[in-house]
């Protein structure tokens, strides 16, 4: 069980084994970096926050109680570190304003068959992946982080609620909105792409 493996490693770190800490860093650094880079949308800044996250984790390790997995605890530190930076430096980037939220809640979202009929190898081509990343990047940070934690990292709703320090209801609501926003962006993109291709063939 990975959770127990981490427990043993954490014990070793607390007993002064720094190599064991480097093992934890090695295990989680790429995922934490991906999460931070998505949250702040800047590689250099993500690097600074990555260093801050692991330093905080090292200092705070004695406070890790094991009530959640180590990865949940670590992602919570990373998320808080990024949100603190964003709230201080880019407060408008964190949440939707109410006007946009109300508009989107009032009607049935647009649908079309082009997106679902596009083969997976095109959806997941380099261009397709870039479009998905752009669609995620358009979301405010609180929504972006929820969709990345749930759909990219694969954390459960309960784990995401612990990481984000929000209720499960709030997480579900943000996830619903984030997924639909990405879906709408991709739907529009593939509608336009098919139209362009039809025009070229005509």
């Amino acid at each position: 069980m990975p959770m127990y493996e981490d427990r043993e490693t954490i014990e070793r770190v607390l007993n002064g084994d720094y190599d064991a800490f480097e093992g934890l860093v090695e295990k989680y650094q790429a995922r934490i970096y991906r999460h931070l880079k998505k949250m702040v949308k800047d590689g250099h800044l993500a690097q600074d926050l990555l260093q801050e996250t692991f330093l905080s984790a090292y200092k705070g390790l004695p406070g890790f109680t094991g009530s959640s997995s180590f990865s949940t605890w670590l992602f919570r530190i990373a998320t808080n570190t990024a949100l603190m930076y964003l709230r201080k430096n880019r407060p408008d980037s964190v949440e939707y304003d109410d006007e946009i939220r109300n508009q989107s809640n009032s009607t049935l979202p647009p649908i079309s068959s082009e997106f679902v009929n596009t083969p997976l190898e095109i959806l997941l081509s380099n261009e397709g992946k870039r479009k998905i990343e752009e669609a995620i990047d358009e979301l405010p940070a609180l929504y972006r982080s929820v969709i990345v934690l749930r759909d990219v990292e694969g954390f459960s709703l309960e784990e995401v609620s612990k990481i984000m320090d929000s209720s499960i209801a709030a997480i579900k609501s943000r996830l619903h909105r984030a997924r639909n926003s990405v879906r709408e962006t991709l739907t529009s993109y593939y509608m336009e792409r098919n139209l362009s291709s039809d025009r070229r063939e005509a």
Partner: protein
Amino acid sequence: MRTCKEFCDCISDYLDGDMSEDLCRFLEDHLDRCPPCQLMYQSLATTVEVCSQSIPAEMPDDVRENLRRFLREHCGQDSCEPKKGV
């Protein structure tokens, strides 16, 4: 009587397996009868599927090396040592 909008609003919960059995049955019955909602379900399911495979966990070598150096520099200080039972 639920509207299509109400059904569409719970597709995300359905995909997460976070829905009561009764509501699941209502939704599945509705999806069988309503092509636009069926399309909405398929497009949201596709969105979740492609998101899960879209962003690889990669980090540049220099970021990895800088992190290693930074932590060795800062974690070696006495004030920073994690102490069991503190």
